[in-house]
């Protein structure tokens, strides 16, 4: 069972001013989180898709993502900060009615700091 379509994608900004987005805005191909050099990241965030990028991703990967007017959410990192960034997937398990996917929560924050739970509709909870 696949997770629901993505509503946000990550972008990291390095100390040297360069950025690495999860999806290349030129061609829609995906960069893997494993390729991020975390020691050099100074800012990171979850960004909404626009229609152009969503279309390129569909062409490049065949995957559907959902464009929206949601704002972007970013945090700055200082040396020694430990980043928390993930998609939290929730599965509802009805013993008689089976498996259903709940909406994904996009998590962003720092260990021992504030952690933002960003919902697909753009709502944010601070934990």
């Amino acid at each position, binding site marked *: 069972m*696949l997770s629901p379509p993505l509503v946000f994608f990550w972008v990291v900004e390095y100390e040297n001013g360069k950025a690495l987005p999860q999806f290349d805005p030129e061609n829609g191909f995906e960069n893997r989180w494993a390729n991020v050099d975390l020691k050099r990241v100074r800012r990171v965030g979850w960004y909404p898709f626009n229609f152009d990028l969503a279309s390129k991703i569909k062409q490049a990967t065949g995957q559907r993502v959902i464009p929206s007017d949601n704002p972007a959410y970013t945090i700055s990192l200082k040396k020694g900060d430990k980043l928390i960034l993930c998609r939290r997937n*929730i*599965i*509802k*398990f*009805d*013993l*008689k009615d089976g498996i259903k996917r*709940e909406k994904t929560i996009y*998590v962003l924050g720092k260990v021992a700091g504030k952690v933002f739970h960003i919902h697909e509709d753009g709502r944010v909870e601070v934990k």
Partner: protein
Amino acid sequence: MVATVGVYQANGGSDGAPSIENEITSSTRLQTKDQFDPNDTSYPIPIPTSGYNYSYWIHVYLKITGGTFTKINNVKFWSDGSISWTFGTDGELRVGNRDSGDIGCPMDTEYDVATGTEGETGHSINDATNGHGYYKDQTTPTKSVTDWTSSNKATVDSTDHTSTGKCKAVVLQAKVASDATQGEQADETLYFSYDEI
């Protein structure tokens, strides 16, 4: 982009090596036989004249079967805090518990075949002789699933999974007392969550 993750149930085989695996898509059933057959109503849990009867325990786990991802971890489990089933006094829907660390049962290494007397009762998870090997010797070998809620989630598996495979399993079992009320029970909802990047 995203991982493909399903909810699976293991049965049969031998300790450490289940022989049957089914993806739970429509339903599952706690019954007095080691099988995955949600439509088979011929193995209910009889109400005992005294003491307790148990369902055979079941291993339920998330399995990563494909997709594109870097890491999956932080598997959690909880209930809505209420089970309406008429278990009788001290009856419950229970989950295997560990005194420390993840409550999940490592698959397949700690898988323990469910045993008992078919059509009558399974062995209790905490039975000193025939209980589940990964849980029975813990100080608190089981908890009610209602002890785990959205504000107090059980950590099932804190391992980083970087490739396809099984996450640790929750081991579920129904416990039925002599003053339980007979009948098909209502649907109940449990939850899993996992983090993905």
